[in-house]
């Protein structure tokens, strides 16, 4: 049980516990930053598996994502600081069963299969090999990733910003009328905005 193993188990414990705590804390902001803690732990495990670039990149990427997650959470959730207890859970038992079932099957599979073991030689410069790979024979993946990122950018901008070329976003889509210029066809969605119950 040399130092690396101990470190691994510590990080693994942090990751799992903070992951579990994420779903049972009231306050939203605390949940997102607990998730950040668990991601940092996973990132550090990756560094232990001598993939330093991936590990630190995970920490870097997740810090940004959790920051944005916290921003959005505070923007949309009812009481972001969890001042009143939040029991926002439905189909509770079913989800617990699903989670445990998946975990059990996976561990069963893991224990059954025998893995060939040829560990990576620590001297490998992982970043250089990744670079050669990106520019080398998997350049196609690299460019398609670029195009998908562009598609995400455009999609997220259209969906989230109010100003659009064809009128603002909250004018709502109206079904076309049966005869031109008439009353919009189809069932009118009930006007009451589907705002959930008020916490009073």
């Amino acid at each position, binding site marked *: 049980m040399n130092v690396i193993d101990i470190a691994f188990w510590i990080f693994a414990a942090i990751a799992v516990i903070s992951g579990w705590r994420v779903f049972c804390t009231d306050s939203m*902001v605390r949940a997102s*930053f607990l998730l*950040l803690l668990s991601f940092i732990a996973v990132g550090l495990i990756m560094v232990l598996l001598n993939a*330093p*670039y991936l590990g*630190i*990149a995970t*920490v*870097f990427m997740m*810090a*940004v994502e*959790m*920051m944005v997650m*916290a*921003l959005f959470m505070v923007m949309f959730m009812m009481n972001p*600081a969890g001042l009143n207890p939040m029991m926002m859970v439905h189909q509770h038992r079913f989800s617990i069963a699903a989670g445990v079932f998946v975990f059990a099957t996976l561990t069963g599979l893991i224990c059954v299969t025998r893995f060939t073991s040829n560990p990576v030689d620590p001297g490998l*410069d992982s*970043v*250089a090999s990744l670079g050669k790979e990106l520019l080398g024979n998997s350049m196609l993946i690299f460019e398609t990733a670029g195009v998908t990122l562009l598609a995400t950018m455009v999609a997220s901008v259209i969906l989230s910003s109010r100003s659009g070329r064809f009128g603002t976003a909250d004018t709502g889509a109206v079904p076309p009328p049966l005869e031109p210029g008439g009353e919009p066809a189809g069932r009118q969605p009930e006007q009451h905005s589907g705002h959930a119950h008020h916490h009073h």
Partner: protein
Amino acid sequence: MYAALAGSGVAIVPFSSASVLADLEVGIVWWGAVEALTVVVVFLHGWSANAQFGLIGAYRYVAIGLPVMLISMFMLIAAALPAESLALPQIVESQRGLWNVIRQPLGLPLFLLLGLSLSFRGPFNYADSADIAGGTAAEVSGAPRLVWEFARLAMLTAVAAMAASVFLGGYLGPWLPGPAWLVLKTATLLLVLVCLTEQLARISPSRMMTLIWTTLLPLSFLHLVWAGVLAL
């Protein structure tokens, strides 16, 4: 926490060719992670006080902190091109012949601007400015405030040390031993940063955000292309 981040920022700076506190193979990526976590920490500092002014300061800082992180990454990548590695000791070694600040002129000024915005001083003071009555530090007094101010200064020194090693060839220098050079360069950069604090006025966050995305980012693209062509 902010102090711890600043400390780890300094840690990856190589003091001399042999000794470096943390010979991380991917130094620059860790500096990016430090910047991202700083944004998170400053946001929490503003959020924790449950007061309106602290909140305004925290959100304005995140609005400016996120795009600034991008620009600093472009600068560091441009510096890593000739060095062929992300590790800081190699970057410093690559500057043995010619310092990066001469080869890539645009790098140092932009990186210093980022340093100011990272520790929210001068024209980038969106987190603790006086017009929101002290911003995130509005509700803090006594020892916690002392630590907060110390952490801001520590982060400024971390930025100065980082800039010195990436752009001015950290410990390279003819006569003096390695670390002496590094301390000298970091001190000069700190002096430049502190003088820079009082020069420019602060524009409103929304105009600053537009300024960053529409002018500083294309500048960093140009800088990167210039470094790429040069490094061929």
